[in-house]
């Protein structure tokens, strides 16, 4: 049955002379491609919306469409530490370093990742918290048996921090073809370049994908302060001292009692 449909599909596509062999087309867009962090920033949200378009060549199939919208933040190098008891005191003992893990990860899915496709596909596309790649730095002292504990702890802490999330059934369909989802960005969201990728799957196969760029940046005073503190550290330090001296002096003058 499937084979027949596939052959028919192929034949129609060839007949139509279409360059792409895909009958489904995916269009997606962001509500805003730039998030500004200002002094009153307490987190925000972005809306991803789009349309799945089908042309006449599309063959109706029993499998439903699956959408996965993945937001990934700038890569970070991260150390996960585990406390252990040493001489009656809780001390950081074992540590595992991860390189190039996303600073932010949100997966919005139409249904749970395992139902969408095989693990191989999910891992290739980085769909779902359990399928993302967390590469370990070569020299690690953590025994193999504990690696999963570190990985689980990392994911757990990131979920607690609202920096990592997987939300199933979070994509709304406004019509058969129009979809929309709202992705919250927490207040502690790292700044940098983000990637928003929308995958359209059906029956475990990737039909189409679209990628958008999203920039999260501090602006105005926040940006100025941050870059001053990092690029012109001595000037920043001197300014901080001067500001403190001035405040102290002002207080001394204002509250002078003698």
């Amino acid at each position: 049955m499937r084979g027949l449909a596939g052959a028919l599909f192929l034949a129609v596509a060839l007949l139509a002379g279409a360059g792409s062999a895909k009958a489904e087309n995916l269009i997606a867009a962001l509500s805003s491609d730039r998030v500004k962090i200002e002094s009153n920033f307490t987190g925000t949200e972005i809306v991803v919306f789009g349309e799945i378009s089908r042309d006449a060549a599309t063959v109706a199939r029993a499998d439903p469409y699956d959408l996965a919208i993945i937001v990934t933040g700038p890569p970070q190098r991260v150390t996960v530490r585990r406390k252990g008891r040493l001489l009656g005191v809780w001390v950081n003992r074992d540590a595992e370093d991860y390189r190039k893990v996303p600073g932010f990860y949100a997966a919005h899915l139409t249904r749970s990742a395992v139902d969408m496709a095989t693990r191989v596909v999910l891992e290739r596309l980085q769909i779902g918290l359990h399928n993302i790649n967390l590469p370990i730095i070569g020299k690690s002292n953590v025994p193999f048996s504990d690696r999963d504990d570190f990985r689980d702890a990392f994911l757990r802490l990131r979920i607690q921090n609202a920096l990592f999330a997987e939300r199933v059934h979070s994509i709304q369909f406004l019509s058969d073809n129009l979809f929309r989802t709202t992705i919250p960005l927490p207040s502690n969201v790292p700044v940098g370049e983000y990637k928003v990728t929308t995958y359209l799957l059906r029956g475990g196969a990737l039909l189409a994908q679209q990628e958008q760029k999203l920039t999260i940046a501090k602006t105005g005073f926040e940006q100025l302060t941050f870059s001053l503190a990092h690029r012109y550290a001595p000037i920043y330090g001197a300014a901080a001292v001067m500001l403190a001296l001035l405040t102290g002096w002002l207080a001394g003058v204002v509250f002078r009692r003698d």
Partner: protein
Amino acid sequence: MSVFIRTQDALVPDSFRKPWCRVQIYLPIAELPVNMFTVFGMGGAVGFLSGLFGIGGGFLLTPLLIFSGIPPAVSVATVTTQIVASSASGVLSYWRRKAIDFKLAGMLLASGVVGSALGVWVFDILRGLGQLDLVISLSYVTFLGTIGVLMLVESVRAMSRRRAGGAHHTRLPGKHNWIHGLPLKMRFRQSRLYVSVIPIVFLGSSIGFLGAVLGIGGGFMMVPALIYILRVPTNIVIGTSLLQILVTMAVATFLHAVSTQSVDIVLAMILMVGGVIGAQFGARTGQKLRGDQLRLLLALLVLAVGMRFAVGLIVQPDELYSVAVTSGRLP
């Protein structure tokens, strides 16, 4: 730059979206928003206590900030800035009263700067090793525990002596101990002292070191040390120690800004304003209390903070794991 990522910032409860408490301000270096009034209140409360007891209050403010979710590195570095402000107004008023021994302060300072540079260097290493939390906690337990117990014993003795109506035992500046037998003597005219520079250099550098590592001014250690070890007259002690703290902390702020880049100027500003206002009310209240009562209260406060750290070290934490971002946050 945030070094220790903690479970959702305690200063930002879920209710932050309600309009009545929308006084969140985003800290550019700590990279998280805080409730402006909460931080202002902390600065004010610590300022009140610092005015009350004549201390810098760094040893209270740093843990308060850490417990409320600000990364420890940012807390320590920013409190050094706040101490500059709070000690500056004190120095000014003691200067007007000519109650500062500049020569003694200069000696303490020169050694204090060396100590604090060493402290910032060690701070950076510890942060890299992931043991900053531990060292901060252990040091707080040790120092606050020791000083707290000493002060408690001293103030209880003073109170019972006063109750017994016994003769008031005063320590005269001329009285000598083994410290005064050390070589390399130097004369400090204003303090009426002729004493070896070795204990002064030791005192200055160790307090500078601790100040940079722990984000404390060290006034609560410096003042008793100057009185009981060096026998500096009480009226000179506070002004001199404040001047030493001012300069040491100014240097520590600068060095933290250069090496760890964790001085948050916005956080510092809110703390400073709260602190200087609180200090004025504290100083007024302090005049109504007796010295030994004040010392007893301060001893209990110091012990309580030390105990809080001890509990954190001994009790098994709910979460054994922690995540630290080591790189990848570019401006």
